[in-house]
C-alpha cells in the first residue's frame, strides 16, 4: 500500500556511469516493514532539542528483481553544523554487528532521515552509505513526520547517483523510486491492534481481547459493508445512480458463489467435530486441574 500521496513523478531508472558493472539490478522499488517505520518515529521523538532531524541505518534484504525490503532500522548518532556533518561510524559498526548477531540475514541497504528536504549533507551522507552498501546502491528514505504544519506525513524513497563530469561526493541526484508499506499476514493482526489503539481517544487500549471480540468486530464491519452495497444496489434499482457494470460483475462473483457442496452435510460434520473438540478441551483441562490438586494430597 502506498505510503505517501500520489505524485506525478515518473520513476526513472538512472544508471549512473560508475555503476554499470553493478551486480544484481539497481533498486527499483522499496517496501518498508512497520517495525522500521515505528523505530524511525520513536527515534524522532527521542531526539535532542539541538537536532533538526535524525538519521539512521536501514537494514533489510535485496531481491533479484531490484526490490529492496527494509526490515528494520536503528538510530545513528550524527551532528550537523553550518560547516560540517559527522556520522558516528564506530556506533554504526557496533550497532550493525549487534543486529547481525540476531538477524544474520539482514544487511545494510541504506539510510533514513526525517524531514523531506534533501540538501548537500544528504548527498554527503548518502555517499558515505554508498560505501557501506557497495557494490550495491544505497537507498535513502525521507520520512516526513507531519509535525510541520501544512505538510503531509509520508515516506519517499530515493536512489542517489553521482552527477557532473567530475563527480563530487557533495553532489548527488536523488531519483525517487516507488515505496510502499508491506508486512506478512501474521504481522497484520499486530498492525490492526495498533491502528485500533491509535484511533481510540486516549491512545491506549485494554488488552488482551478475546478471539470472540475480534470476530465480532470483523462481522460488524462485514455487515456495514453489506449495508453499503445494499444501499448502492437500491439506488441503482430506483434509477438514482447509473449502475457500474464492473461493480455488478464483482458483486456477482462475490455473492453468487455456489454453496451447494456446503449444503451437503459439510457443516453438520464440521459442527460435530467442533463440539467434540470443545468437549475434549474441557475434559483435558479438568483432568489437569484434578491432577495438580491430587499431587498436593499425601498418602498419609
Amino acid at each position, binding site marked *: 500500500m502506498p505510503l505517501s500521496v500520489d505524485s506525478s513523478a515518473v520513476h526513472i531508472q538512472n544508471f549512473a556511469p560508475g555503476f554499470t558493472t553493478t551486480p544484481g539490478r539497481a533498486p527499483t522499488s522499496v517496501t518498508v516493514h512497520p*517495525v522500521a517505520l515505528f523505530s524511525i518515529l520513536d527515534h524522532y521523538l527521542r531526539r535532542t532539542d539541538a537536532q533538526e532531524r535524525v538519521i539512521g541505518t536501514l537494514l533489510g534484504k535485496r531481491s533479484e528483481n531490484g526490490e529492496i525490503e527494509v526490515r528494520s532500522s536503528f538510530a545513528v548518532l550524527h551532528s550537523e553544523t553550518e560547516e560540517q556533518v*559527522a556520522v558516528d561510524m564506530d556506533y554504526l559498526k557496533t550497532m550493525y554487528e549487534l543486529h547481525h548477531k540476531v538477524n544474520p540475514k539482514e544487511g545494510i541497504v541504506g539510510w533514513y532521515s526525517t524531514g523531506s528536504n534533501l540538501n548537500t549533507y544528504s548527498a554527503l551522507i548518502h555517499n558515505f552509505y554508498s560505501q557501506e552498501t557497495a557494490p550495491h546502491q544505497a537507498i535513502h528514505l525521507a520520512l516526513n513526520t507531519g509535525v510541520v504544519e501544512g505538510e503531509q506525513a509520508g515516506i519517499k524513497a530515493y536512489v542517489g547517483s553521482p552527477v557532473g563530469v567530475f563527480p563530487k561526493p557533495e553532489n548527488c541526484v536523488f531519483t525517487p523510486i516507488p515505496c510502499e508499506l508491506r508486512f506478512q499476514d501474521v504481522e497484520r493482526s499486530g498492525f490492526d491492534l495498533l491502528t485500533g489503539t491509535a484511533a481510540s481517544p486516549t491512545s491506549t487500549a485494554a488488552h488482551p481481547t478475546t478471539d470472540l471480540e475480534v470476530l465480532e468486530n470483523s462481522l460488524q464491519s462485514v455487515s456495514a459493508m453489506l449495508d453499503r452495497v445494499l444501499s448502492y444496489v437500491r439506488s441503482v434499482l430506483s434509477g438514482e445512480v447509473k449502475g457500474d457494470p464492473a461493480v455488478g460483475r464483482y458483486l456477482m462473483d462475490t455473492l453468487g458463489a455456489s454453496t451447494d457442496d456446503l449444503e451437503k452435510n459439510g457443516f453438520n460434520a464440521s459442527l460435530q467435530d467442533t463440539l467434540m473438540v470443545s468437549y475434549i478441551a474441557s475434559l483435558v483441562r479438568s483432568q489437569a486441574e484434578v491432577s495438580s490438586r491430587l499431587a498436593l494430597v499425601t498418602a498419609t
Partner: protein
Amino acid sequence: MAAALAASLPAPQAAPTPAAPMHEAIPASMSKVIDIEAEIPLKCVQLDGMVVSKIIKHSREAQGPAAHGLILGLDLDGILEVSNSFPLPNHSSDDDDKSVKGVARYQGAMLRSLKEVQADDSVVGFYQAMTLGSFFNQTLVDTQAIHQEKLRHGGVVIVHDVSQGARGNASFRAFRLTKAFLDAYKRNNFSTPSLISHRLTFSSMLEEVPLKIRTNALLSSFLGTLAEVSGPSLADAGPSAAMSSAALPPSFSALDLGSSSVSRNLEHIIEAVDSYKTEEGNLAYLQRQIAREKARAEAYVAKRKEENAGRVAQGLAPLPEEDVSRLFKVPAEPSRLESLLLLGKIDAFGKSLAETSSVGLVKIDDAVRAAHGSMGDRGRHATPTRATRPGAAAIAGGVGQPPNPY
C-alpha cells in the same frame, strides 16, 4: 569530504547533570508518582506500539518458539511503561558457559548503544514468544526468577502468542512469579510437602499483570494518515471510491473458517500428556524407591532393637544404636517442578483449544446462516442453525466470554 564524514563524533556529551540529590530534582507535583525506593506496587504494564511490532517481527522470524528478548522502560505511579525492546541471540547448544558470556556482552553493548541515542536503557523484564497459549517452561521460570531477584519491581515477562496472532488476534500478556512459587524456587525445593505448604498448583505459579497497549501521539497520527480514507467515505459514494482508497484495506483473517490449527493443537495436547505420563512414571518410581529404602531402614532399626532387648535380657551390654541414615541412603523427595510445568502446558493447550472451538462454533453458525441466506430462501433458515445457536452460546459463555449478540 568522506573523511570529514567518517570522522567519528566527539565523545558523547558528559552524562547529564551528575546525580544531584534526587529529592530536590523532583517537582512537588510529581513527588507522589515517582518512587525512588520502588514502593508503589505495579498495577499495570503499558506496551508501546513499537515494542508490539518488534516482538511480533522477532517471534515470526525466529525458528521455533524460542524467540526471546529484553524489554526496556520505566515505571511511573504503578504503571510500567515499556518503551523499547531488543531481541537476544538464540542460545547456541555448544558450550553453555561461552554462550552465556556472549549474551551478557551482547546485552551490555546493546544497552550502551541505546543509551547513546537517548532511548530507555533500564531492563524491566523480558519477552518470550509462545504457540497455542503455552508458555510454561523451565527457561522462562529460571530467567524470571533471576529477574525478580535483581530488577527493580521484579520485572515482568511478556508472552506473545504467535498462533493466535496468525488467527487475527495479536495477543500479549504480562506475568510475574507469585511469592509462594518464588519462595519454593529459592529453597530449590519442589517436593510434595513443600508444594503443599506453599499451596502451589500450576495456576498459582504465575500471576497476571494487566496489560495495556499504547501508541504515542506521533505514531497515532502517522497510522491515522495511513488508514485515512481519502475522498468521501459516505455510504452513498460511488463504488469506484471504495477501490482501495484507504492505504490500509481492512483484513478479515478472523473470519477464516479453516481449522488447521485445531489438529496441531490436539497433537500438542497429546504430546504434552505423553510427557506428563512419563514424568509421573518417573516420580512414582522414585516414590517407590524412597518407600523401599525407608522400609529397609525401619526394619534394620527394629531388628537392632530386638537384638538389644535380647542382649539386655542375657545381661550383655547392648549394641550401640548406629546412625541409620548413614547405612541407608533414603533418596531425597523428587522435585515436582517438571510435572507442574507440564500440567500448566496441558492446561494452556486445552484452554486455547476451547477458545478455538468456541469461536469455530460461532463461525459455523454464521456461515450456515449466510449460506442459507444467499440461497434466497429465508424459509429454509434451517434446523442446523436453530440447533446450534444455544450450544454456541453456551460454550462461548463457558470459556468466560459473553455470548455473541447476533
